């Protein structure tokens, strides 16, 4: 009788320790980057380019490159992923084709990023002659984002209650009219959440962009321009040891960006849930 209670107490203690450790690790990571990096953050850090042998100055070109390639990837992947999810959720009949598509999506989701980077290099940089460019990197990133957006969009569409569709069909609408005018708008908040989360993942990628975007510091204007992303900049600064304070500043800025994506996504979900009652 007593061992039962003691085991229970010990086990529950372990669970608390496990969860507490996870939170502690997160806090340590964020806190460390924050403390070391906050001193570097300033308006000039964000808006000026690196200068000098020690990469003093700011990281503006890398911020532009990161935002540019991520936006481009988002534009490329969203129509394809949303329409693919529409197919899976609304039109698909269970069968081999659908299983194949899901297997492919799962495979893409767990491709090691270096394999994706080499793939992007072989296909977009060399075979299609785009060279090291925003376009090559965006295309490679969109393959990475595709399964995530497909998955969350499909779930969002399935979460739309059936009676909404029946009302539309009852009025004589075709399937596409129903999807376009009632289902998709209703699922929109969660779809956007999925896109935002996938974008957050893309922002944090390094191996993929090194082999598709290149590593030169350059302010990209056209999609065929090369550039250096913030993650690449962080990696180079850390391995070459040129400028640690800047490295921490870049890391902090990166984490702030990704954190805000996360918070915006949660806010949208929460607002949507409240509206749906």
């Amino acid at each position, binding site marked *: 009788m007593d061992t039962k209670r003691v085991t229970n107490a010990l086990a529950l203690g372990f669970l608390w320790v496990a969860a507490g450790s996870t939170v502690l690790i997160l806090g340590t990571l964020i806190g460390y980057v924050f403390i070391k990096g906050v001193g570097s953050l300033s308006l000039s850090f964000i808006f000026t380019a690196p200068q000098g*042998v020690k990469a003093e100055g700011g990281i503006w070109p890398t911020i532009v490159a990161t935002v540019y390639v991520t936006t481009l990837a988002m534009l490329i992947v969203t129509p394809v992923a949303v329409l693919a999810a529409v197919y899976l959720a609304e039109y698909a009949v269970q069968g081999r084709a659908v299983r194949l598509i899901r297997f492919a999506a799962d495979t893409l989701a767990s491709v090691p990023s270096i394999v994706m980077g080499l793939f992007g290099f072989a296909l977009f940089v060399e075979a299609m002659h785009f060279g090291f460019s925003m376009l090559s990197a965006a295309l490679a990133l969109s393959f990475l984002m595709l399964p995530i957006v497909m998955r969350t969009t499909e779930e969002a569409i399935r979460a739309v209650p059936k009676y909404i569709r029946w009302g539309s069909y009852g009025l004589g609408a075709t399937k596409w009219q129903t999807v376009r005018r009632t289902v998709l708008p209703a699922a929109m908040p969660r779809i956007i959440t999925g896109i935002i989360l996938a974008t957050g993942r893309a922002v944090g990628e390094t191996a993929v962009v090194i082999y598709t975007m290149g590593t030169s510091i350059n302010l990209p204007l056209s999609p065929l321009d090369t550039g250096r992303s913030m993650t690449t900049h962080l990696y180079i600064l850390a391995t070459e040891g040129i400028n640690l304070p800047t490295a921490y500043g870049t890391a902090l800025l990166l984490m702030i960006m990704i954190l805000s994506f996360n918070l915006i996504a949660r806010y949208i979900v929460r607002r949507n849930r409240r509206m749906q009652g």
Partner: protein
Amino acid sequence: MRDRGSVFRRLLAALAALAVLATAGCSRGDASATRLAVTGSTTILPIAEVSAEMFQKAHPGTRVLVSGVGSSAGIESVSQGSADIGTSSRDLKPAEAGLGLVDTPIAYDAIAVIVNPGNPVRGLTTEQIRDIFEGRITNWKQVGGLDMPMGLVNRDEASGTREAFSNLVLKGKPFDPQAAVLPGTGQVRSVVAGTRSAIGYISYGFVTSEVRALAVDGVEPSPATTADGKYPIGRVLHFLTKGAPTGLAKEYIDFVLSPAIQTKVIADAGFIGIAGKAR
């Protein structure tokens, strides 16, 4: 609710159209006269980048793109034509002699053997260093230090510094395969700075107070001993072009060789200007 979806879709279409227009409006081929691609050694990267900035300011309308992944990559790129200038912190290998590359030395550099400041050993001979990096000496007490196993730190194979060190010290013999291999000067320096038993090698220009550079054969590394050749592990930093440099590449190289860069930027970086060598 009715129009939300279509507004979103129209916005998407507009942005996509913008992206297409942006792509169409810019072509790749027109820039060769005003664009320069410089790639190669990570040791040379900082001075190449700063010179590039200053060059672009002095010659508005030009774009100099500098990247650094390793001397071997630079040599590869320039011989294949994907870069205009390849930078290298090592000499060309015999196998690379037939690539038609023309070498313009731009600075001299020493390779410092670094240890942790808490390590009592202050100097070694080239034979000892060779034995250590080949894996024959494995404990500090064998070279007059404390009784602790050596933490050997090597550079990755893409590194010109590694190649130069291998040629100058190991004379082509293989490194100890159990040595840790780190992809960057900063990592080597950081690990050596934080571990008492560590020993590694980096460009002298990158030595900071967090590590100690050993004296080799009794000579401390410094700009003076590199310039007059007394320090035994010295090397040339190269700019390589396919054929003699012409056009924008020539202007850039001349710019790097100009006194302004040589005395300010290169010295700032801890290297020795071309003119400074007494040989």
